[in-house]
């Protein structure tokens, strides 16, 4: 008899939890606040681990950096008399100067207000390529705000914010198959629609470009946001064409794009804040 009681209890728990999960799935919007709350809470843990890793790697780097510094110090001391150190310092300052200039240019070149964020985690479920950033609604971030980043001198689209917690947000990258961006070829100005397809190589697909454009586009051509009926403002780079297919039975070309942003080395992003220039 007690065995039967235990048996029933586990079934009832399962039914209750199953119903709760089903309701969560059926009314995703109603549970938005719950998700945001949970995101805020668990991001504290996530941030804690991230900071610990950062601290550990900084400490390890500091030790090796100290060793390197010692070596450099010895070297520079020896070469001091020949005034070589001056030259070295000059080069270092020059490099730093150029880095700062690059950073300043990036901030100036954004046509919209932006919030600088750091990537602190990735989707742990393996079901999407979403990334977690360290700023949330408390910093002015809202759902559907576009996210961009600077790499190799170009400002490229990263994705859009899909969920915000108080101090963190989830960004859906443009590689995700739920991502669609109204786009335009930078040189020939033909319009199209870029969509992600969770490609293994991290590529995107550009659809609805008319066949007539074939003579005017080539491998390496840049694709940018068109700003047409889209939450992405005009003029941000999406990627470069790497493959053009002309299928006889289709009215448009099939184009494969390599994103401007290399997601594997992305650390910082900027969330664009609407200033009336583009619609959310």
């Amino acid at each position: 008899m007690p065995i039967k009681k235990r048996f029933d209890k586990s079934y009832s728990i399962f039914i209750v939890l199953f119903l709760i999960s089903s309701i969560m799935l059926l009314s995703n919007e109603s549970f938005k606040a719950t998700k945001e709350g949970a995101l805020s809470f668990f991001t504290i843990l996530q941030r804690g681990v991230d900071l610990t890793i950062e601290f550990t790697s900084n400490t390890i780097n500091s030790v090796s950096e100290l060793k390197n510094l010692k070596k450099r110090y010895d070297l520079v001391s020896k070469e001091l008399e020949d005034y070589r150190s001056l030259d070295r310092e000059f080069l270092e300052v020059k490099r730093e100067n150029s880095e700062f200039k690059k950073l300043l240019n990036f901030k100036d070149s954004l046509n919209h207000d932006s919030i600088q964020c750091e990537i602190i985690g990735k989707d742990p479920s393996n079901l999407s390529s979403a990334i977690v950033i360290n700023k949330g609604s408390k910093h002015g971030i809202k759902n559907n705000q576009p996210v961009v980043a600077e790499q190799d001198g170009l400002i490229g689209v990263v994705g859009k914010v899909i969920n915000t917690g108080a101090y963190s947000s989830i960004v859906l990258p443009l590689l995700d198959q739920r991502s669609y961006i109204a786009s335009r070829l930078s040189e020939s100005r033909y319009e199209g629609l870029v969509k992600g397809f969770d490609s293994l190589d991290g590529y995107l697909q550009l659809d609805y470009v008319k066949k007539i454009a074939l003579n005017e586009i080539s491998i390496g051509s840049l694709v940018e946001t068109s700003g047409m009926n889209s939450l992405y403002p005009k003029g941000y780079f999406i990627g470069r064409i790497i493959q053009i297919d002309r299928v006889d039975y289709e009215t448009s070309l099939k184009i494969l794009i390599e994103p401007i942003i290399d997601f594997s080395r992305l650390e910082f992003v900027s969330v664009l804040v609407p200033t009336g220039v583009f619609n959310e």
Partner: protein
Amino acid sequence: MSNKVLYFLASLGLVIFSIITQSVLFPLFFKNDYMPDLTLIVIIYFSINYGKNIGQVLGFSSGIVLDSLSGAPFGLNTLVRLIIGFLLGFFKGKIFLDKILLPCIIITICTIFKFFLIQLVSMIFPIDFEINFFTIRFLIELGMNIVLTPIIFFLLNIMAKKLYVRRDN
């Protein structure tokens, strides 16, 4: 505190730890977001060893954490992991886990079953989520899971024994 509550809290702590590790630590080592599913491995271990109740509650709670940190629809991971935790709980005391072979077989079946369940749930419920499982990405996840499962089971066995001895003392 009863043994069940203690085991549940310990396992929940482990699952949350594995989710955070998966989210923050693994991206540093694994390229292109190819990651093993640590949480699934931990759920399997606790469901088989401690039964349906711990299995399903653990699956449910870890699913909520995963859903809140991921771009997937809220409830998807919760439902899938709840079902996996519950079903695996039936095997408590019915199978003898060896060190390598059986854990590898179980994780293979469970990973494929997880993909199948996600596909099924996406079809049944009106959610905006499509995923193609017939890609190398999921084969890599399966491979990583198979490699890691015996190791994690071994570590969890050691931890469980220590916890058990401490409780006895």
